[in-house]
């Protein structure tokens, strides 16, 4: 069945609509032996995924997976529900920062200690879908859908967040920006699951922010978005910065020149203009049902400026 559901909830990015599935592809009967499993450990989940010969899908919040299944874009033979794995439900404060389990919902994250340290990340995650969706959706699910328009990802990338991946082999940790390789594609191998996300510990005088543009006030996919994370020195000068953009390229972009434009400044107007210009220059979107090239390119700069101001203020800058 063909419809736009693949792109629902930020699953993929319309400019790269390469999914020209045959509208009535032959898959007579579909999967006849579909199974639902809810293992209680990560190890068991990995084993299930490794053993499955057909297609498997990981169910965290399900707010993307069920939409894809309804649209007929995916017909898994095995659904592995990870919500009954205790480790995946936890938010831990560690020596190096925070660890957020893969099955932590938006609401749980919003109520957690992470909010104070990483307000931009939590706000981004809490923008996904509706209040109803917030009761279910997860940052890891949002990331693994590999949509360039995913709300939490630019904020995570700006934050320098890492994904902890478990699988049949050794546990590995990679930067969030390395998870998605293309719309709807990730660098995960068969049997691998993202178990959690690591957010670094906050130094003093640090702040982050995320803003997206949507035509309505709620319930939309980002047409363009920006995440900014800054650390200031004692004088209020930006000494570290990371700027990420969403929905302007096949994957979320970490824009080094944009960060460079504001490092060493107190975010004066000139720095802001340079930031906006660097962001716009990094964009390579195309026209689609949600926005135009022109619009995305321009508004990427506008949002980056606005997000930078909020992040700067949160870091204590004046």
């Amino acid at each position, binding site marked *: 069945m063909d419809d736009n*559901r693949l792109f629902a909830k930020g699953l993929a990015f319309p400019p790269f609509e390469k999914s020209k599935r045959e509208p*009535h592809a032959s*898959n007579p009967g579909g999967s006849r032996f579909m199974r639902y499993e809810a293992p209680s450990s990560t190890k068991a989940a990995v084993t299930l995924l490794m053993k499955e010969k057909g297609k498997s899908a990981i169910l965290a919040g399900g707010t993307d997976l069920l939409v894809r299944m309804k*649209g007929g874009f995916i017909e898994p033979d095995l659904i592995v529900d990870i919500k009954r794995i205790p480790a995946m439900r936890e938010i831990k404060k560690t020596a190096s920062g925070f660890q957020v389990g893969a099955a932590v919902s938006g609401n749980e994250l919003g109520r957690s200690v992470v909010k104070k340290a990483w307000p931009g990340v939590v706000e981004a995650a809490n923008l996904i879908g509706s209040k109803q969706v917030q009761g279910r959706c997860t940052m890891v699910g949002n990331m693994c859908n590999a949509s360039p328009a995913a709300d939490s990802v630019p904020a995570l990338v700006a934050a320098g967040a890492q994904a902890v991946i478990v699988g049949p082999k050794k546990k590995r940790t990679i930067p969030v920006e390395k998870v998605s390789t293309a719309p709807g594609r990730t660098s995960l191998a068969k049997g691998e699951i993202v178990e959690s996300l690591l957010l670094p510990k906050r130094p003093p005088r640090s702040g982050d922010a995320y803003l997206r*543009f949507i*035509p309505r006030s709620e319930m939309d996919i980002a047409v363009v978005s920006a995440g900014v994370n800054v650390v200031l020195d004692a004088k209020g000068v930006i000494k570290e910065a990371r700027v990420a953009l969403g929905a302007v390229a096949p994957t979320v972009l970490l824009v080094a020149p944009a960060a460079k434009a504001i490092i060493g400044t107190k975010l004066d107007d000139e720095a802001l203009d340079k930031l906006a210009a660097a962001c716009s220059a990094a964009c390579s979107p195309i026209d689609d*049902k949600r926005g135009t090239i022109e*619009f995305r390119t*321009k508004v990427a700069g506008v949002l980056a400026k606005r997000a930078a101001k909020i992040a700067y203020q949160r870091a204590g800058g004046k």
Partner: protein
Amino acid sequence: MAYDTNYTGQKFKVVGTRPLRPDGVDKVTGRARYGADAFAPGQLVGRVLRSPHAHAKIVKIDTSKAERLAGVKAVITSADLPDLTNGDQAMYDMLVNCMAREKALYDGHAVAAVAAIDAATAKKALKLINVEYKVLPHVTDVDEAMKPSAPVLHANMFTEGVEPKPAKASNIAKRTEFGHGDVEAGFKEADVIVERSFRTEQTHQGYIEPHACLANVGPDGQGEMWVCTQGHFVYRNHCAQLLGMDAAKLRVTASEIGGGFGGKTHIWAEPLALALSRKANRPVKLVMTRDEVFKASGPTSSTSIDVKIGATKDGRITAATATLRYQGGPFLGIWAELGAMTSYACYDLKNVKTVGYEVVVNRPKVAAYRAPSAPMAAFAVESVVDEVAAKIGMDAVEFRIKNAAKEGTKSSYGPTYGPIGIGPTLEAAQNHPHMRAPLGKNQGRGMACGFWFNFGGQTCTSLNVNPDGSVTVAVGTIDVGGSRASMALIAAEELGVAYENVRCVVADTSSLGHNDMSDGSRVTFSSGMNTVIAARNAKKVLCQRAAKMWKIPEDAVTWEDGHAKPAGANAGDFPPLSLKEIAAAAANTGGPIAGHNEFVADGAGVSFATHICDVELDPETGATRVIRYTVIQDAGKAIHPSYVEGQYQGGAAQGIGWALNEEYVYGKDGRLQNAGFLDYRIPVCSDLPMIDTVILEIPNPNHPYGVRGVGETSIVPPLAAIANAVSNAAGVRMTHIPMSPPRILKALDDKKARKAAKAKAA
């Protein structure tokens, strides 16, 4: 029986109050049953296979594999729906739309359907149907479709309404023209002329409940259908005709309806469900998915409109013209015609001419959407009216008041108006505090007027007085927004009983004569008037019975305050008899007491509204927020004011969505890209402010209580009012609806570029 439908100016006891609606408890507890909430023994699940192509010849359909799948009970194609339309082109178009025959005419056009034991099996079966298509060139844009080079949808379509009849087939189905006077002469008298072209994109009614029905046809040729519809009698008539059944043998019961706004005045998949049921000999439940609703049911037209208005410096419009091109999907519609009729209905014009072109394209069949066609025409006309006013330096409201139609005005579409409300709504707007409230930075205010004809139509109603003195009103008009409460109020008013003692139900098609649909804002007007008449007929019977009980002549009894009373001192001295007492004695005085009426309700009063809107723009992103909104509309008489306000607010909200964000987006492949509530953006709660309402009551002389329709007019002004507000805030005229952020940002950037170029040249 003789009855008086003229306005009586009576004082009301319960009409105009706000009692609780009778279906309220069911609807807040989840008990109310909608289209998809019914079940029948042994029911199957129906699903429809739809064309993935915008335009394609159907070479072959092979259903054999699907038929062999275990659990599949019936598969149908157009072969199962033979053409029984007997040369009736409108019925034939309906048949073709329900199931494609030689060609698929749009993305989502039904080509086959299955009935199976469950949804999963039905879904599998659809995949096993093999359709061989020959893809044809397509056209989805209204202006493109009119070009001589456009792919032609129907080789037998020759433009109607032009002389001589064209020799070449085209996508221009029909031309219509309205107006009077001499526009050329009128433009010569003008000091100022403004001419502009506008575009509006296609929008959907966006009812939250998808089309759903439960069809059951037995081998004896008798059938039943439970369906969400705005007109179960019309659905019955159309389905029966397409399936070759007697209307009497198809009993249709209307479910509660989860929104329609015109979209449920047309049949879509119902004939397929009936055909599947007939073939499978089992009940079939067919519920559309949301993307089917968008792709294959009921959007309104996209349009392209040119407007030219001339005026003198002192603010008199001397001439006005409009050319309106509306696409109707792949079939001839009446949409441009309605646009051409409504364009200038608000104004008293000496010279006016409007021309409408009905255009066919490879998009779904257009259905009525709340005051169909009027909002787009009003957008174009009211934008230019604002611009002309600005050019002659006159206040926009003042300019409209100067040119407003009034009693005795010959309307631009023909008839001469009786007492109407355009002037009063404009004066109310002028005096409304909203008009004088200060505006902040990046904010703009706009206002606009709107008109809708309203409709009367065929109506058949029964009112039964039960033995215990309670009253049942059986109507054949679907309750889309609280009309059962209004009917009960009217019956209570007439009979002099308490509102709580009256229950109004929507009867099925076997219980009443034909009723037209709940469309044209006609229900409270026509079914309401019919309830008045039925109640008055019942009162006559009640008086007869009292006369019998008192053993005096019938004409010696009158009805007052819910009681039969002797007409005068000569009639005798009897204590009044209550309705309850007369009802209790009915078995001995002649049996059941009832009042009926059936008629065509003529004289629906035309309706006008003026809206005021404030917006705030984000000049860096083009985002717009409506920050204040006021609706002023003439209701004639508000029977239940809460639900009148609800109609005003709901229409305004739909108009706001249309003005700012809603639109069908088609790809180059002719396929709809946003067939869902995620990317077809209807307003959410946080998008809107409170919507203030002012109900004016200028009685309709053709209704005993003065009622006019109220449901549709409220969607007519918003596109224009918001466009005027945005144009005022942005300092640039917006001519393309929706005014989505990319369009606004581009307009602002273009303005800046023009300014810069001008400065450079200077």
